[in-house]
């Protein structure tokens, strides 16, 4: 519609109609800091306020000193020039890589026991690979930036012409025209809008997460700039503050036509917020690119490392200590031998010694030898570990990106692992901190039910009721079948419950209308006229269609009407009213026009209602009223608002339906619906006019008193109301959210909801997501409002909060009922105190005891603080998920940040580690990918240490037999290939493809996920076990071979073994042993694993064959063909050593599996024996039992509901037995 209505100016002056919002200074939030707008004007021009913007004259900003950054944004780490040095630097910041670099440099000196190439080649390979990975990831970021930079916006090109230009080409001083539902490309000064009085609506969800629209208003002087042509000669100058991150302040002034006007935040439109309900606006660019407030707010995302990796570093340090230790032993041994024995070893010509082994300076030689030894035993520290892990993680990330089950068909967005560092951390999550709007809900309201005159309308039943009914129906005949998976088999259409209540399920709603899911024939098609209270119903519909601030928009093509409402609730009401036959179609400055159609047979009548006053909604008043005069001249006040507010204001005779309505409201509330009560009041002419006079007086008051006055006067009229009914609107959850929360809860995860919305909304969503349910004991922490007297209030508030927390903890402690569940709801203000140092632990302890925690009205900063509190307080992995810029802090603070992509701007996604397009994909991301990745990486690292210890220590043992001279028994090439080629692919295939159980089973048994948070696979017991295994293997490999090849002939031909033969045999044994070991470790062999494991062994033989063909191989020349191949002893030794190395592990796993099987072992066996098919009852039973005993989530709620229903049934008919599910 944007362009169609673009030229026409809407004939509305909202500023006349609005009572509160247009003139108030913005409510300074806790996070916002004091508004400097009023008094900052004097500072302009001074330090920190030096910016000068020549409006509509961007040419001036192309040169210094007025040259400001372009609107190009870049979030990449490197550019073409800096990539190489920076990436190299990054690589060598890792201790291990630095160590290897040092050894590579030393390998060029005679100290090194190996040839230089065998040290440099692996390092180059490893570093090169890591750098390629780094480059690819940065390239992706670059592409994402380009997407944003290449968005287009209409810019004034001079002569009153506007043309589209890329965002990145935008310059300070440009005049831009932003149309409806577009994002602002930079921070703008609002000049004028499609509304006559320069008002526009802005959605700032990306900035602060608030869903209600904000009103911005231009300065009076710029109002005439209402058309493209008017910018032809527009010249003005803005002097204002320098770029800063404060979102809620702005200081500056506009010099226009030789007058100076102060600019306050009301005229500033921030980048990444969105124009709503306004056809277009004109604005001047003030801050571009990285100068814009939203970019100033973005902090460099911290580099996160997973728990496993941090532990791995510790192990590396341990190994390093071991390395230094054995090197010391080695060099002391060397020094001693040099001193005592070397002079006698005439065959070494000791008289001709150089510094490296000089008998007269044994200490110096020892020190040189220490370096040699450090290099020699460097194999203890797996050089390829980091690169292998990185490679594996990239591949794992690729699998996450490619997962078809995390692809959203609607938006066409796949899951993205933006950093692959944290894959395995996904498998260890303990607490999830979730944003609400945009994450759990789609910010769309559906009119679902209403209660009019004490009668509840709307048969659509909530999902909880449905599922409970299904359970009852299926479980009634067979008591042994426990709770089924409530989400399965959703194809039945109607279920007859014992009590004879019909629950309709599924798709029998008519062709769905957006925002309207109401279904009740009593009210539809004009049938309401036949209802007993039809006059009240009429009133109800009128309130729906009249009491709002929306504007209708007529689609020129189809003639249908859409509404531009300030909040989605309001939109839902209007759609509902339209469906009921009260179509609001026109608003003028003073009137609202409604097309009424009472019965389906009668035609429509257009009615005009004169709007006298509009007392709009705000979070403090929690109500809105409209005073109007109908066609009969009656003056009516329609008021809708929170039930508690309305009920307080009812007249004595207006409470007729109060009891029934309250009951309905409770029902609706429990079903997770948002409720509002509707009421009206008939005003006498005289009464109104006297009030109106007073109101006018209040309205024209100037000064700080004004607001109070207005509120007081408004309060006077909004009394003596008569209750009409209540509405119930469903805050539409995103697809699959309750299911996902349910499963995550079953996987033992804690879920905290942090929302910027008000408490009521948050609680509703809590119900809808089954984080809250009836019967749960709710602990609400909030600061009593009202007394706001400076610091005393603060102290009092703190004390009161302390008391509340103490009471809550006491309550939790004293409760003996095992089924009791507690929920903690805390308000943003209370949270500010609760997060203070002296209270946060108390608060956290209480929160841990509660099954669910909901924090409302939290600022972005508080979100981050809560996340930090949980992360540091519990010491477990936290995951934060959100979609808006207000979640960025939280996403960056948490161990894992997940961004919801595809709905709104990119801030959250840019800051996140993983992005998914729907909350429901979190389940698969954690339960499947997280679980797999955790186990894979854990196993992989353990195995890596094992294999390098097994290999590295044999080199050390040999030294004892070689006079500690630093000679290696293996050929340089063997050592070079060991990590890079011969043993790398199997372990990579383990890290990429290993699956303990299939993805379906992961999902069917969320309890398996607990293996991660409990860290069963990377605890010290396991790590040390693997290291011990490596130690044992090294001993077995070395000493068995030593004894076999000690001095005897190795073949019938009488030849004895030389060093090459012993080394090659030992190396063969190592290759066999470590590859057999990994084969024993794996539980999932696809052709890839087979290829890699057996291929590695084959590669070794092929290599030694090929290598034996070259003369470079020296003593290994033709070693396999001529020396070892024909020797049965060689093959016998290989078999013996391989078996000896692996038998202990085999014993261990056999014993563990038979006596102490882990869950995945048993499930593997069940699958193996196909018991899940043969004994489906057992399978189902186990699946339901596997769910953690959760107190939140849908299943828990259905359980509770069933208990409740069964309890009732039991009272009615004792014949029915009660079967409770534990």
């Amino acid at each position, binding site marked *: 519609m944007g362009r169609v209505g673009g030229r026409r100016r809407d004939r509305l002056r909202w500023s006349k109609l609005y009572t509160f919002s247009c003139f108030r200074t913005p409510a300074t939030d806790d996070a916002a800091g004091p508004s400097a707008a009023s008094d900052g004007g004097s500072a302009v021009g001074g330090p920190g306020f030096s910016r000068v913007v020549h409006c509509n004259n961007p040419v001036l900003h192309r040169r210094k000193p007025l040259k400001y950054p372009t609107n190009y944004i870049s979030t990449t780490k490197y550019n073409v020039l800096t990539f190489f040095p920076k990436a190299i630097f990054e690589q060598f910041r890792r201790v291990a890589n630095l160590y290897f670099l040092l050894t590579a440099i030393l390998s060029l000196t005679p100290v090194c*026991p190996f040839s230089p190439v065998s040290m440099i080649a692996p390092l180059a390979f490893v570093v090169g690979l890591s750098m390629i990975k780094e480059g690819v990831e940065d390239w992706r970021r670059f592409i994402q930036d380009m*997407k944003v930079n290449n968005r287009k916006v209409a810019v004034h090109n001079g002569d009153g012409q506007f043309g589209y230009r890329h965002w990145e080409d935008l310059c300070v001083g440009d005049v831009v025209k932003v149309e409806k*539902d577009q994002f602002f490309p930079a921070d703008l000064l609002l000049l004028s809008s499609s509304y006559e009085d320069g008002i526009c609506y802005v959605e700032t969800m990306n900035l602060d997460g608030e869903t209600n629209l904000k009103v911005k208003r231009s300065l009076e002087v710029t109002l005439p700039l209402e058309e493209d042509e008017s910018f032809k000669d527009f010249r003005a100058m803005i002097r204002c503050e320098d770029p800063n991150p404060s979102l809620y302040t702005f200081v500056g002034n506009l010099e226009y036509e030789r007058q100076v006007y102060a600019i306050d935040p009301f005229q500033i439109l921030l980048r990444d917020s969105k124009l709503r309900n306004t056809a277009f606006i004109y604005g001047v660019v003030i801050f571009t690119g990285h100068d814009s407030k939203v970019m100033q707010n973005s902090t460099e995302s911290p580099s996160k490392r997973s728990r496993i990796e941090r532990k791995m570093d510790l192990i590396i340090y341990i190994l390093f200590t071991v390395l230094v230790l054995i090197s010391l032993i080695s060099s002391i041994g060397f020094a001693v031998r040099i001193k005592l*024995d070397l002079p*006698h070893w*005439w*065959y070494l*010509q000791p008289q001709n010694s150089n510094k490296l082994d000089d008998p007269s300076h044994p200490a110096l030689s020892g020190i040189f030898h220490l370096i040699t030894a450090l290099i020699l035993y460097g194999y203890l520290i797996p050089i390829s570990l980091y690169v292998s892990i990185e490679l594996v993680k990239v591949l794992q990330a690729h*699998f996450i*990106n*490619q*997962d*078809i089950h995390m*692809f959203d*068909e609607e*938006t*066409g967005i796949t899951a993205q692992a933006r950093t692959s560092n944290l894959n395995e951390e996904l498998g260890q999550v303990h607490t999830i901190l979730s944003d609400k709007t945009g994450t759990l809900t789609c910010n769309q309201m559906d009119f679902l039910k209403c209660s009019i005159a004490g009668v509840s309308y709307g048969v659509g039943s909530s999902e909880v009721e449905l599922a409970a009914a299904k359970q009852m129906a299926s479980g009634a005949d067979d008591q042994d079948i426990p709770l089924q998976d409530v989400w399965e088999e959703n194809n039945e259409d109607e279920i007859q419950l014992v009590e004879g209540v019909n629950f309709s399920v599924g798709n029998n709603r008519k062709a769905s209308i957006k925002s309207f899911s109401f279904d009740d024939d009593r009210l539809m098609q004009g049938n309401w006229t036949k209802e007993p209270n039809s006059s009240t119903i009429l009133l109800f519909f009128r309130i729906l269609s009249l009491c709002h601030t929306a504007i209708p928009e007529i689609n020129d093509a189809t003639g249908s009407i859409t509404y531009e409402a300030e909040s989605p609730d309001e939109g839902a009401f209007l759609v509902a009213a339209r469906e009921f036959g009260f179509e609001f179609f026109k608003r003028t400055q003073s009137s609202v026009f409604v097309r009424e159609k009472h019965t389906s047979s009668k035609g429509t009548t257009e009615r005009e209602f004169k709007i006298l006053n509009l007392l709009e909604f705000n979070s403090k008043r929690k109500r809105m009223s409209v005073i109007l005069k109908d066609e009969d001249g009656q003056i009516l006040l329609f008021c809708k608002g929170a039930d508690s507010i309305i009920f307080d204001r009812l007249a004595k005779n207006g409470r007729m339906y109060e009891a029934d309505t309250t009951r309905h409201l409770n029902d609706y509330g429990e079903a997770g619906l948002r409720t509002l009560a509707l009421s009206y009041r008939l005003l006498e002419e005289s009464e109104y006019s006297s009030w109106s006079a007073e109101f006018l007086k209040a309205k024209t008051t100037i000064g700080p008193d004004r607001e109070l006055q207005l509120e007081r006067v408004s309060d006077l009229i909004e009394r003596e109301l008569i209750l009409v009914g209540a509405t119930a609107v469903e805050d539409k959850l995103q697809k699959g959210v309750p299911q996902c929360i349910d499963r995550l809860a079953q996987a033992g995860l804690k879920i905290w909801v942090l929302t910027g919305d008000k408490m009521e909304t948050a609680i509703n969503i809590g119900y809808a997501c089954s984080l809250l349910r009836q019967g749960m004991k709710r602990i609400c922490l909030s600061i009593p409002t009202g007394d706001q007297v400076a610091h005393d209030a603060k102290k009092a508030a703190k004390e009161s909060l302390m008391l509340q927390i103490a009471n809550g903890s006491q309550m939790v402690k004293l409760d003996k009922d095992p089924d009791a569940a507690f929920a903690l709801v805390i308000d943003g203000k209370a949270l500010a105190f609760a997060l203070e140092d002296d209270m946060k632990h108390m608060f956290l302890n209480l929160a841990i005891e509660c099954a669910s925690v909901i924090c409302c009205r939290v600022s972005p900063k508080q979100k981050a603080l809560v996340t930090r509190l949980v992360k540091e307080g519990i010491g477990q992995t936290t995951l934060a998920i959100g979609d808006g810029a207000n979640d960025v802090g939280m996403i960056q603070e948490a161990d894992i940040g997940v961004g919801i992509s595809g709905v709104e701007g990119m801030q959250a996604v840019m800051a996140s580690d993983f992005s998914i397009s729907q909350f429901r994909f979190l389940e698969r991301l954690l339960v499947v990918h997280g679980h797999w990745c955790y186990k894979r990486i854990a196993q992989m690292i353990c195995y890596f240490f094992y294999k390098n210890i097994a290999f590295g220590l044999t080199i050390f043992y040999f030294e004892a*037999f070689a006079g500690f001279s*630093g*000679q290696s*028994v293996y050929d340089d090439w063997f050592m070079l290939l060991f990590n890079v080629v011969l043993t790398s692919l199997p372990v990579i295939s383990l890290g990429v493809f290993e699956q303990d159980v299939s*993805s379906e089973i992961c999902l069917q048994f969320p309890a398996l996920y607990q293996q991660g948070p409990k860290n069963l696979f990377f605890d010290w017991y396991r790590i040390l076990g693997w290291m011990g295994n490596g130690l044992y293997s090294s001993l077995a490999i070395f000493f068995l071979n030593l*004894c*076999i*090849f*000690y*001095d*005897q002939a*190795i073949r*019938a031909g*009488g030849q*004895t073994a*030389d060093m090459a033969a*012993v080394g090659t045999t030992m190396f063969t044994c190592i290759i066999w042993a470590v590859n057999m070991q990994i084969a024993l470790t794996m539980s999932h062999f*696809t052709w890839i*694993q087979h290829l890699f494991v057996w291929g590695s062994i084959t590669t070794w033989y092929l290599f030694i064959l090929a290598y034996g063909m070259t003369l470079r191989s*020296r003593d290994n*020349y033709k070693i396999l063909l*001529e*020396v070892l191949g024909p020797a*049965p002893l060689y093959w*016998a030794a290989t078999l013996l050593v391989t*078996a000896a190395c692996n*038998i202990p592990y*085999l014993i261990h*796993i*056999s*014993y563990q599996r038979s*006596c102490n099987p882990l*869950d995945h072992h*048993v*499930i*593997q*066996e069940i699958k*193996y024996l196909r*018991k899940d098919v043969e004994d489906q009852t057992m399978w189902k*039973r*186990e699946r339901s*039992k*596997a769910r953690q005993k959760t107190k939140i989530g849908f299943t828990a709620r259905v359980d509770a509901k069933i208990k409740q229903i069964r309890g009732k049934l039991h009272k009615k008919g004792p014949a029915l037995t009660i079967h409770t599910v534990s």
Partner: protein
Amino acid sequence: MDPFEVEGDSRKSNKPKYSKFTQQELPACKPLLTPGIVVSAFSLIGILFVPIGLASLSASQEIVELIDRYDTSCVPMTDKVGFIQNSKTDKTCTRTLTVPKQMKSPIYVYYQIGDFYQNHRRYVKSRSDKQLRYKEAAGLTKNCEPEGNSADGAPIIPCGLIAWSLFNDTYTISVNKKAIEVNKKGIAWQSDKNNKFGSDVYPSNFQKGNIIGGAKLNESIPLSEQEDLIVWMRTAALPTFRKLYGRIEADIMANDQLTVVIQNNYNTYSFGGSKVLVLSTTSWIGGKNNFIGVAYLTIGGLCLFLAVGFIVLYMFKPRALGDPSYLSWNRDILD
């Protein structure tokens, strides 16, 4: 609506293509350690290993080995080093051995040296493979110092400490006073002779320096035919090692008297190393090597024992495969 959405059409094309690989659904074999497999795995190892052990042990038992350490008795009790370093003294030493069992041809003659660090890094490095192979590479003696070049700067061929310290004891063997030939051909690896030691490379400047290390080489015989050198150049892995000296291609009967006339030239006395003469027959496993047989028998026996052990375990602590009561959530209830 949004004029900026350029990627609107790419929605569908973003969809990951389904493949069993990317969805991680590749068919896989999932071996499971069932009791049956455990028991049969251990039994199998046992059944395989015990016969191998027995076979190699019996092969080792058949071998007849004569060992004679002669370094102590072939020198005077005092000033052993002075004696051995004096090139003028007569170092002939005669040893008489009795053969306990019949030794079938071929009988291998070895010398065994103890405490000689042929695996010392300084020693191992001190050679020039190129020089040994190619005539043109005579000058490549960089690694050979201090035995690289002679005093006048000419390259020593073969250079380096290994060649320089070539073993130079000789054995002359007679059976029942009748001399028998010790064949010194074919004791080196064929590939070494063919490819690593040049047939056109002749020793030169060898052992001409101030200190004489070990054996001298006949300068008219190319390196590829100097088999003693070739054997020696294959450095041993351990400080005690045996190297092939020659081959007797005749049977020696039990109780035959062997007389070995030894030229005791090689200095092991400086570092206290031993020198041993060994005569041994071989079998398919090589020399007399009981260890491998015993090791196989031990591991085989252990596996059989383990197989029985696991059978007992499964009998006394049976766990039905896939018994759900062992799942953690069921066990929590029991606990």
